[in-house]
């Protein structure tokens, strides 16, 4: 593929322009079952190439899924044409770095027969049903595997390769008891087939669905709240613009002018870590080919840095932090890698608190500019170290910045989200508004 990419870039150089290319391809298999038999079976192979052309300080973008010479030439000419319409932006350049770098994960594994994969995929449905007659369906169940490859190549000679193989399983349980319904789903992802944990997703989906059959609304009021790592990750991810220098440029980041100031509790520190040893996958370079290293975002509550690419770095007169993001079909932006939330001054757990295991409608109920959100929640009521009841049919609302100021660290060991991309010490948020009965 590198030869094809070089040919495309030669066309750009002939037009006295510079450019970079993003190529990605994947081969995948996915199957799900219904009534004890495979009901859908999908195989796929796709590829896409996207170009960012810069000519006379003007940027144009284009992409194609067809890789014949005519389509590739059309992609280049369209990008050049698009560049003619944009205004000059001398902050955006192809970075002057060269050389090759790769991040390829290839773990040894034994060949697994398709028949075995199929039989085990069916278990993601049938084994849940066996657990309880009240399980009426498992609408979300699937086994999937994917080989993924991407390349970056620039007219400055930077070439990167990212290669990955992953497997994942999903199971769910819908339960019904006298017309009262509940549902829950779980997933697991691994780099090697034998590491997939089928039992964990089946048991977890069933466990929470069974408990949620008993969910009751809580009285409206203020509560102490603890999030599971998955829920907390969703909440923090929803407001990822708080760390984004691109959002700061676009006046969409409320922390834009708070570098060096205390923005959250002094007990918390937050780090972006592209190569954390417990992470599911490393991310050794960004979409401009810049090598990444851990970035301290918040230290003892003080905002230390935002995510930068080369454009935002030039704009704010600083250095790129290696957080450029771009796909074949999207313009240059910024995005983080894996987050670590560490804490100090560990306090004991409060006697009573809510544990949120599921949030619905977070993205539609959030204002990313102000940090306000309102979301439907489900979970468990804890009292004196025990679960005493299950709640649902209530909403929680708040302002993320205020919540992160009014938080207590209640444990020293970081726990991982299910996808192993987010790690946090246990936290308790105080005085969270809940609307219920």
């Amino acid at each position, binding site marked *: 593929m590198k030869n094809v990419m070089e040919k495309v870039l030669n066309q750009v150089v002939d037009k006295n322009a510079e450019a970079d290319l993003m190529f990605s391809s994947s081969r995948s298999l996915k199957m799900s079952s219904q009534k004890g038999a495979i009901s859908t*079976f999908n195989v*796929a192979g*796709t590829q896409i190439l996207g170009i960012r052309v810069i000519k006379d300080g003007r940027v144009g973008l284009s992409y194609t899924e067809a890789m014949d010479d005519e389509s590739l030439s059309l992609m280049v000419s369209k990008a050049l044409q698009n560049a003619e*319409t944009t205004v000059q932006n001398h902050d955006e350049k192809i970075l002057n770095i060269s050389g090759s770098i790769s991040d390829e994960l290839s773990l040894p594994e034994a060949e697994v027969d398709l028949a075995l994969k199929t039989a085990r995929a069916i278990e993601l449905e049938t084994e849940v049903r066996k657990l309880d007659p009240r399980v009426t369906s498992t609408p979300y169940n699937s086994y999937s595997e994917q080989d993924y490859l991407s390349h970056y190549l620039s007219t400055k000679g930077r070439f990167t390769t990212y290669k990955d193989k992953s497997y994942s399983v999903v199971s769910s349980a819908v339960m019904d008891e006298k017309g009262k*319904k509940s549902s829950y789903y779980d997933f697991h992802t691994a780099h090697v087939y034998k590491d997939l944990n089928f039992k964990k997703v089946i048991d977890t989906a069933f466990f929470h669905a069974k408990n949620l059959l008993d969910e009751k609304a809580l009285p409206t009021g203020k509560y102490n709240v603890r999030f599971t790592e998955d829920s907390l990750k969703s909440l923090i991810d929803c407001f990822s613009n708080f760390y984004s220098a691109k959002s700061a440029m*676009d006046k969409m980041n409320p922390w834009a002018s708070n570098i060096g100031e205390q923005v959250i509790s002094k007990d918390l520190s937050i780090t972006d870590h592209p190569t954390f040893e417990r992470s599911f996958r490393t991310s050794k370079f960004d979409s401009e080919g810049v090598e990444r290293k851990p970035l301290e975002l918040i230290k003892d509550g003080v905002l230390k840095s935002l995510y930068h690419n080369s454009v935002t770095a030039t704009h704010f007169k600083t250095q790129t932090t290696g957080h450029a993001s771009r796909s074949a*079909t999207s313009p240059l932006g910024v995005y983080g890698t894996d987050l670590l939330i560490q804490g100090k001054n560990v306090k004991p757990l409060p006697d009573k608190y809510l544990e949120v295991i599921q949030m619905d409608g977070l993205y539609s109920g959030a204002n990313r*500019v102000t940090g306000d959100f309102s979301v439907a929640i489900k979970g468990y009521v804890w009292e004196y170290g025990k679960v005493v009841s299950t709640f649902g049919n209530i909403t929680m609302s708040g302002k993320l910045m205020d919540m992160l100021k009014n938080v207590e660290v209640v444990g020293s060991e970081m726990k991982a989200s299910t996808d192993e991309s987010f790690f946090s010490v246990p936290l308790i948020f105080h005085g969270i508004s809940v*609307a219920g009965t």
Partner: protein
Amino acid sequence: MQLLKSTIANDVIFEGLAQGADFVDVFIERTHNDSMVFKNSRAEDIQSGTIFGVGIRLIYGEQSLYGYTNSIDREELLRITKLLGARIGKPGTPKTLNFEKLQYPVIPTLNDKEVDAKAKLAYLKKIDDRLRQDSKVSQVMLSFTKKKQLIEIYNSDGLFATEERPYIRLFHQLVMKDGDLQSEAFHGPGAIGGWEFVEKLNVEENCENLIKQATTTLYAAPCPGGKMPVVIDNGFGGVIFHEACGHLLETTSVEKKASVFWDKMGEQIAHTSVTALDDGTVPGAWGSLSIDDEGMPTQKTTLVENGILKRFISDRIGEMKTGHKRTGSGRRQSYKFAPASRMRNTYIAAGPHEFSDLITSVPNGIYAKKMGGGSVDPSTGQFNFSVQEAYLIENGKITRPVKGATLIGTGPEIMSRISMVGKNLELMAGMCGSVSGSIPTTVGQPALKVDEILVGGNA
């Protein structure tokens, strides 16, 4: 020009049938996308692209096998077909087909008028200038997207169908700031058609509404929480029916018994004042299609009539699994997805009441003027929606603006609690994400009064 030679389509279908499939279809797509993002008072990103690929589906009984590729090479398509067929591994009876091109009534669309990039830029700049006349506006983000999708469908019944679908959408986002207070407002009209749709938009009215919405939210007090009556205004208010009921009527959910309505056909599932439709034939509407992505002419489907469940939204697989006839609703984002039963233009029909009747009937509650997004769990019917612009109703009158409101409940509950339906039906464009990807759909309704909903707020 055909995207895929009929001889190659024939060979693929022949191979699929030889592999024992009961039914085979081939979906070919070439889509050109153009987009322009206008931000910080300038064109920031201008992008063009081509999506191209082929999806092959083999159906064995109720089992669907699907594969896709970017290639139209005969050998690659046959390789995928054999790979799919090998999963079942039974011999079949192939046949050579004489494809007959499907003739169908074409849904009227706007013309696919095109203008050059400078004209588009000038138009976006005009909106930007108008919005920034308000000194509290801190950011304006406008995006213009144009998509031209050309599809072809061949199947083992001998069908060959093709359709060209031009889509156009203009998205507005406004950020307003006053000291520490910040607010946002959105508007995203869209249609099947070209630039003439944009030319017909009322720039001044749209800008005024955006500024009013952002200003209202900027200074609004927190919304009170608890159960109360809610009047949901027309247009995008229809997202509640879409999420809380529409998804539950798709055979994709019904076939798995993952919908609370799966066994309710012919039963009263909503208040008698509610009649709801899913109509793929609305001229020029964002969710309209002449044929669905399985090559069936689309139709106007009455889902609920006077509160009684009349039809499900069904595709080929849905019909096979549930027995409910296809409704021309097999849809997908692209060739990368197998088709599934999906909504088109879905709305609650107009009723007898004036808007003022709805408001005066509420002693204390919420007026949800503009809804935001939301989601639903079809298996339980539980939904949640944010409200972008909301006001208190006190003693039958709209009084103060409030912010941060979320509505939660279940589809069956809310449908039974719609007690008054207004006259002012309006449709709005949106995007719907589900099993077959993100597709253009229209939501709509007249103003509705719901006797009780749990409102999430923080006051």
